[in-house]
């Protein structure tokens, strides 16, 4: 007997928090790998009063990635559901634009900060999403490495588990780390 997929999926999606009506993305192109440089600091936009130039292809790649990450029907419910609450990195390699999206730490002052929740995209010249990878998701194009499934080879640690007392402090400490209490404000009542 042939099982009809539609009612099963409809029931399943009704059970998932915040489930929407959008379709599953097409198969990913695993020949496209994310460059490590996408995670680097990058070049910021010029100082105020200085123009920055962006070609249309880059603009489209950013737009496609940002709209997939936060589609219109998911926007506005909280500060973290606004496109302007994120920082976007873009890197071009050949015909592919890679886009990294991460929370802007200064964007949502009054709301709790976000653990994980970022993403990376690879966008083709025609604006197609070739790959998307969300924070914490395994990268199907690379061998498993950080999942904790590989047995460690080193000896047992003599340190108490999670100990934070043994390393040398970084020097110098960034000056903005010493602002002291300005990020969280007073404790909420």
């Amino acid at each position, binding site marked *: 007997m042939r099982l009809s997929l539609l009612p099963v999926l409809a029931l*399943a999606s009704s059970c998932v928090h915040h489930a929407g009506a959008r379709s599953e993305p097409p198969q990913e192109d695993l020949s496209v790998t994310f460059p490590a440089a996408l995670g680097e*600091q990058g070049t910021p936009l010029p100082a105020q009063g200085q123009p920055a130039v962006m070609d249309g292809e880059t603009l489209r790649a950013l737009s496609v990635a940002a709209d997939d990450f936060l589609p219109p029907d998911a926007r506005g419910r909280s500060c973290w559901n606004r496109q302007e609450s994120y920082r976007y990195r873009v890197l071009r390699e050949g015909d592919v634009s890679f886009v990294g999206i991460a929370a802007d730490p200064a964007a949502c002052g009054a709301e*709790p900060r976000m653990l994980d929740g970022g993403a990376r995209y690879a966008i083709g010249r025609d604006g197609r999403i070739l790959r998307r990878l969300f924070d914490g998701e395994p990268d199907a194009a690379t061998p498993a490495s950080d999942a904790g499934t590989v*047995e460690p080879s080193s000896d*047992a640690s003599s340190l108490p588990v999670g100990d934070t007392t043994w390393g040398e402090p970084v020097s110098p400490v960034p000056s903005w780390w010493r602002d002291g209490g300005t990020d969280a404000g007073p404790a909420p009542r």
Partner: protein
Amino acid sequence: MRAEARRHHEALVLLLWLGGCASSPVADPDIVRPAPGAPFLDKLPGPLLGPFDSPSSALLAACGKILTKPHASAGGRDHPDFGVRWRVSSEYCAWMYYTPDQHYVVSKLTDQSRVDPLQRSKSCLLPSWVDDPRYPADAIRYIYALHNHPYGSSLTENDIQFIVSEGVAHGFESETKDGRLRLSIVAFFSRNVSEPSCDGFHQYIPLTGQLLKWTRAGDDWRCEQTGAVSWSDGEERRFTVQKASRPCDRSRTP
């Protein structure tokens, strides 16, 4: 045809995993969430676990507690149902804090997260503050920001930015009966989906820049330094990660 059969299978597995909707709204006294339509919680109630005499015992208790919550682990990616397991997986987050009476305590958990219509994105919105009615708000010292990574992946850019912002707010180290403890963030993982256990965690300590990976083998714990984070001095809050692979050793500081 095979792809269609696989989709049928995944849909059925998804239903089974979700327990026919029964699992989502069940109230768990360990977990706090905003009411429907209400803003995100801006403080977490405490305590959930404790008091403990050492930071390690509090950390391990929190690890076991978080990883046994529903769908906290997605298991290995080679499993045929990994796609479904990832979609239904959840992140939980909490604080481990130090109290004025010299104990270590774990707050309640939350799984409040950014809305994602397709459940692809995993996140946890951890309030900056713990509300433990036994103590004044400013007497609590924040030691570990706790959460889980369902696949066990490394700490993310958002995790690293998060804990530095919390350090600016609360301080990067706290005086305790066990010495000066540095603020850090950890992401727990389990290797087993059906019987989750505390098998390890990733850790970042802003004050030393260390990225560490702790793994359990039987009763032994092993620690590897997997990288170091360095920050730019500018207000734009940018950092770079230098990867490494060496044992954690008091005599070989980074």
